[in-house]
């Protein structure tokens, strides 16, 4: 799908959920509408914080998984089963910690709802960003270590073959001839 087509699709989903969630909440528990203004404001900020935090966590996990898969697949010598398992479990751990941090970082008492929301959402984004960077650096470093090891083994193997070739060229083995001529 082209990028231009993806963006309206995402926008449509966001708009749909922005309408669906409040309507569903009011339908399930109409007493929400009778809450005093300050409490309703706090509930609204908390719900928005959860929506943005969960959305950011799931979006970044979805962006991370295929790219991490490519790096890990390269590290495992193009073994896609292991790469799938490794990237899946890493992304799942990332998403779980991200969701937990989002849940813990709910805004407390505040004067200005938008500033409070910005602060708590900012904290979640910084946490997710640091986690993404750490996962990237760690997985690429491990991939590089494996690649280095592979090259060392390849070079050692080539050296060994070359040495055997040299030895055979200078001094043919006793059993170089077929068994009938031993």
């Amino acid at each position: 799908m082209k990028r231009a087509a993806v963006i309206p699709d995402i926008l449509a989903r966001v708009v749909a959920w922005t309408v669906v969630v409040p309507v569903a909440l009011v339908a399930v528990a109409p007493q929400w509408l009778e809450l005093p203004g300050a409490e309703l404001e706090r509930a609204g900020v908390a719900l928005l914080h959860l929506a943005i935090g969960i959305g950011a966590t799931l979006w970044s996990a979805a962006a991370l998984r295929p790219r991490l898969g490519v790096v890990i697949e390269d590290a495992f010598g193009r073994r896609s089963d292991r790469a799938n398992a490794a990237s899946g479990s890493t992304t799942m751990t990332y998403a779980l910690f991200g969701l937990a941090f989002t849940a813990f970082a709910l805004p407390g008492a505040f004067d200005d709802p938008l500033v409070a929301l910005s602060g708590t959402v900012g904290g979640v984004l910084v946490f997710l960003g640091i986690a993404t960077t750490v996962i990237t650096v760690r997985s690429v470093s491990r991939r590089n270590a494996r690649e280095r090891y592979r090259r060392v083994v390849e070079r050692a193997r080539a050296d060994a073959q070359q040495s055997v070739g040299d030895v055979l060229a200078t001094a043919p083995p006793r059993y170089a001839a077929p068994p009938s001529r031993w």
Partner: protein
Amino acid sequence: MLVSTFYLLYLGISIGVTIWVARTLSRNGRVFLVNGFGAEDVADSVNHMLVVGFYLVNIGYVALALKNGSRPVDLVSGIEFLSYKVGIVLVVLGAMHLFNVFVISRWGRVMTRAGHA
């Protein structure tokens, strides 16, 4: 009204600079990554993950720093507020950029050494 204007200006400038730095880093960093890794798909994946991390950390910091410090009450304090906040964001961006450049150059060095040892 004044407070909202300065908050919006702060958000606009900070997010704009973040996007500009991220695009510059990803465009120029890709060349070094392709050179280091040899494989273009791996280099593009690593590049994308670094950019996602960069955006999350910096936009998160921009949002987090909004509530810190005093609110502007007049035009002069508004300009001071804007200058201080944008300055801090630029320092954080510079630190993240430096970190990414350091990581990319280290990977390139390691892979080049492994290839020519």
